[in-house]
């Protein structure tokens, strides 16, 4: 049984790998972790993580360039309901469209659009963009297993200039506040997305990765 981190040439795969590996070791979980873009591995994986660094359009370009990747992912995640986690831009590309650099079609797994934060934050507050650093989550529903042991003092590392404007509020598990409410954890059934980087969020990040890995 293994968790697969999809390597499509985007950014900090290694940090994600290291953090998952650390959680699996620390909690003595009998799961392995692999990094690959091999379609067969995607089919055989028990859970899938899609990291993402860079821009929406670059990430989508890379995914589209990998032959049959979108088709395989659609089959595994949407049809077969395999557990999935998208991180940062890996979450954003689940949207219908992104507007970073150029309007780009996303995977359309969770309805909404990814827009620049600049047009939404109040300039009088002199908020810096990117939203960079540690922020906490405003949790609406503490009973869900993903947030087990996560409390108000836990903070997570964010770095982004665009945000996922989620259409159906029921898909938002937590927001973070930065001028406006920014969806920080989104969900639809077997699909989760984190706007923050759990792999860079110290012990809080490892805790939430553990919770996700444990979800059945």
């Amino acid at each position, binding site marked *: 049984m293994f968790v697969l981190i999809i390597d499509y040439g985007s950014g900090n795969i290694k940090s994600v790998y*290291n953090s998952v590996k*650390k959680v699996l070791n620390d909690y003595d979980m009998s799961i392995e972790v692999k990094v690959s873009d091999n379609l067969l591995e995607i089919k055989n994986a028990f859970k899938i993580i899609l990291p993402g660094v860079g821009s929406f359009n670059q990430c989508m370009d890379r995914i589209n360039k990998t032959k049959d990747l979108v088709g395989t992912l659609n089959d595994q995640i949407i049809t077969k309901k395999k557990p999935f986690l998208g991180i940062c831009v890996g979450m954003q590309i689940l949207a219908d469209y992104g507007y970073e650099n150029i309007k780009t079609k996303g995977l359309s797994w969770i309805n909404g659009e990814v827009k620049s934060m600049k047009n939404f934050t109040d300039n009088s507050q002199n908020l*810096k963009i990117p939203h*960079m*650093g540690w*922020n906490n989550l405003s949790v609406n529903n503490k009973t869900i297993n993903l947030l087990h042991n996560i409390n108000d003092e836990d903070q997570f590392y964010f770095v982004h200039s665009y945000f996922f404007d989620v259409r159906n509020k029921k898909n938002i598990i937590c927001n973070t506040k930065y001028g406006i409410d920014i969806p920080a954890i989104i969900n639809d059934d077997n699909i989760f997305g984190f706007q923050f*980087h759990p792999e860079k969020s110290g012990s809080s990040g490892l805790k939430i990765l553990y919770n996700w890995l444990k979800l059945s």
Partner: protein
Amino acid sequence: MLSKRVIPCLDVHNGRTVKGINFVDLIDAGDPAEQAKLYNDLGADELCFLDISATNEERKTLFNIVSKVAESCFIPLTVGGGIKDNSDINNLLKSGADKVSINSAAVFEPDLIKKASDSFGCQCIVLAIDAYKDNNNVKSGYNVSTHGGKKKTNIDALQWAIEGEKNGAGEILLTSMNADGTKLGYDIELTSKISSEVSIPVIASGGAGKPLDMVNVLKKGGASAVLAASIFHFGIYTIENVKKEMLKYDISIRKTW
């Protein structure tokens, strides 16, 4: 609410930390990975490695260090020093660095920031500015220096920061060469001048002597983060001391104790 960040900076030379932490018994006090782990445990919000190696041969060890640090350190890591082109950046990011800071090279090759930001995203490109006060020369009163402050230029630090943002830098690491090493506090005037004119975060650096200095540059200078080296390395103050002082002044922090 977004927390203000406290960032210890470690100098690395030929794969070893110099002037590193020397208030605790580390098995190997010159090992960057051990020091990184310790600062991670002590509540650092980010880490900054500055490679001061003079030759490329010495610098090669950096990739191994970064990759070793990334195995045990789950907070953001910025690496700077001697970065000349996209291939250096690519190697560092692949090794596990989250951001790279570019200093002198940006002065000599003005396209570098733009090229780097286009290829890797603005989130990982930090423009490091070593500024010194020169009242008669440029409009802002601060010039850019290179080579660790040894060489002065006629570039206005404020204009340089604005241009850096335009070219796609995601953050500015602003060091006051006048305040650096004095322990008399950050240059609030410089920090405030730059921070109020750019929309990207500014990390204040140079001059930290006590926790109140950090409070002042965050409150009055508009900095998003504070960087310090010696006050942490010598155990004069801990990161917790600094964060507790920040709390007293209602600055939001990431509580790590």
